[in-house]
């Protein structure tokens, strides 16, 4: 059995865990002081050697991303933290910032020092009032203690941090859309190249990192590369927060080495709800192809999940038991992508619209056999042709679910209705009334 490894979550149960004093009493900001005595290049090398990969979904090596910045030309360069956590199923960064915002602020300070940034931004999704309160306070407390501001701890290094709230747009989790949004524009993705490392915020060299990636940096600096690489698998090093949601007895946040399996995690979560059978799950949010009970022992690392046909994504493990209609779930996810499509490119804007039309028809028992093939064909027209990953992600659950549960789609067609009692999937009892209305 794999042991859990609380590092990022280690202080969450402390009294007033969100306060600077609590964080410091648990050794917080020791890593910043250590980092300020190092050469910035050595910190970058350290993070490269640690093998830390982006925790926001794509899994790109964090140190390498930092290393892509061009040499200092005397002008500004920026760190932008992606705190726009919105991928369905993903719920790790919000509790991190609510419970222990200082770990992120310390990570921001160290990362900024390493890459030569004097003004960092945290782009928080706008729909989490109390998290924003905590972040604003955390930044203010860090300034007051001299962890931010001018000449930090006598190092000569200056850093300002601005916490910025978005206004409701999933697409702003895409790093270039996030930058446009942060510049006060509609949040639409940019053509790459140039990548943000070369021309990012205000067309200046910019690193965009996820909350959990940045929050992992202090521990790596403090405890060293070997400590970090001792956790995880060959090419997926370290720990990460696994977020279990859905039909398990104790959903929640489980911080573990990469490579832990869903079987182990469900076991820790007290098993499936009421001893029911696992039907399907997402390894990394709704943009990752779904898995079934055949994948219970797939190590949850980047390579193994990829080899099994999905993506580790954000480790957002949404778990659905046998009472759940897969067509209903996939329809609702697709409506999400339709709602969140920014409209910039045709495959995504039109594709998600038509996919929703077809899926709602099938789910409502008004579909035909040809609709199922049409779904696959439409997905094929989107995948690889959309401007950014949102369009691709919209197709994942459709293609994978038709492959795994085609007969369930067919039952909707042949029986002329959804064969499931929706109330059976809920956590409370109710009598099923009419088919739920369409999504907004």
């Amino acid at each position, binding site marked *: 059995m794999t*042991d*859990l*490894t*609380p590092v990022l979550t280690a202080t*969450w*149960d402390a009294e*007033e865990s*969100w306060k600077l004093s609590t964080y410091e009493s648990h050794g917080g900001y020791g890593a910043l002081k250590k980092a300020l005595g190092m050469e910035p290049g050595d910190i970058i090398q350290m993070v490269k050697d640690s093998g830390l990969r982006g925790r926001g979904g794509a899994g790109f090596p964090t140190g390498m991303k930092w290393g892509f910045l061009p040499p200092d030309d005397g002008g500004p360069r920026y760190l932008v933290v992606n705190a726009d956590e*919105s991928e*369905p199923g*993903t*719920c790790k*960064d919000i509790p991190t910032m*609510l*419970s222990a915002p200082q770990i992120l602020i310390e990570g921001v300070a160290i990362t900024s020092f390493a890459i030569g940034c004097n003004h960092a931004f945290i782009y928080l999704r*706008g*729909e989490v*009032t*109390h998290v*924003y*309160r905590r972040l604003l*306070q955390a930044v*203010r407390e860090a300034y007051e203690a001299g962890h931010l501001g001018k000449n930090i701890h006598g190092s000569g290094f200056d850093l300002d941090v601005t*916490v910025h*709230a*978005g*206004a409701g*747009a999933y697409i702003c989790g895409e790093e270039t859309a996030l930058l446009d949004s*942060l510049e*006060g*524009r*509609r949040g639409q993705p940019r053509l790459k190249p140039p990548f943000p490392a070369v021309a990012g915020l*205000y067309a200046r060299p910019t690193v965009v990192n996820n909350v959990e990636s940045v929050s992992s940096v202090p521990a790596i600096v403090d*405890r060293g590369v070997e*400590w970090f690489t001792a*956790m995880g698998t060959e090419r997926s090093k370290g720990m990460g*927060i*696994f*977020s279990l*949601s*859905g*039909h398990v007895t*104790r*959903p*929640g*946040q*489980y*911080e573990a080495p990469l490579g832990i399996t869903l079987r182990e995690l469900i076991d*820790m979560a007290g098993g499936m709800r009421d001893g029911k059978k696992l039907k399907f799950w997402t390894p990394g949010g709704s943009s990752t192809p779904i898995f079934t009970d055949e994948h219970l022992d797939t190590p949850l690392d980047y390579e193994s999940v990829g080899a099994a046909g999905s993506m580790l994504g954000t480790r957002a493990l949404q778990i659905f038991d046998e009472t759940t209609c897969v067509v*209903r*779930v996939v329809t*609702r996810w697709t409506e999400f992508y339709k709602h969140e499509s*920014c409209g910039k490119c045709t495959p995504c804007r039109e594709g998600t619209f038509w996919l929703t039309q077809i899926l709602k028809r099938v789910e409502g028992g008004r579909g035909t056999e040809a609709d199922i093939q049409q779904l696959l064909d439409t997905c094929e027209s989107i995948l690889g042709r959309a401007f950014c990953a949102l369009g691709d992600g919209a197709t994942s659950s459709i293609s994978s679910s038709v492959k795994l549960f085609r007969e369930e789609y067919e039952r909707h067609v042949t029986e002329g209705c959804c064969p499931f009692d929706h109330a059976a*999937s*809920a*956590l*409370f009892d109710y009598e099923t009334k009419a088919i*739920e209305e369409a*999504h*907004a």
Partner: protein
Amino acid sequence: MTYTAETLAQLETDAADIVGRYPVKRSALLPLLHLVQSVDGYVSPDGIAFCAKTVDLTSAEVSAVATFYTQYKRRPNGEYQVGVCTTALCAVMGGDEIWRQVSEKCGVGHDETTGDGKITLERIECNAACDYAPVMMVNWEFFDNMTPDRALRVVDDILEGRDVKPTRGSHKVGTFKETERVLAGFEDGRANEDQGLGDPTLAGLKIAREQGWEEKR
């Protein structure tokens, strides 16, 4: 603009604070729109004009941005924004039924406001609290592990003018306008309000403590 001199003066003071946070003025636009909503309760024509003047854009350019984001409201919003998550996981766990009952109780549908101006109802997308599904948000504060009864009680309280308390975080949900001021980046002195973390947040940590899985250093 039809703002009183007093309101305008306050807006200008706050706007200067917001603009000062960024190296480039235009970046202030999103928080400025939140600020406008904190005064007018929606993105009003006056608010658009004010933002345009503040960041040197045309009002068309400001409108183009405002209409992109779901949190910016084009009509006067209710005092409380009540959002029921009906994205896939919450929907399946009971969100659909909660939505049905809440909507029936309020007598309004998605993006509609009750006649008394108390509640604007919204079917919201995933709000990053899936381990607490089904989830409802009131002015973007968490109401976790909802049932129809719990949700209806919250709605009742709002409609009858009683304070409502989230299940995590702050002690009391502020009004829509008060919330928008926070989202514009102004501290309201309530960050230390807390109700303890819910079981899901601490689920893994609790097991690690019980098992004595100390971090290997």
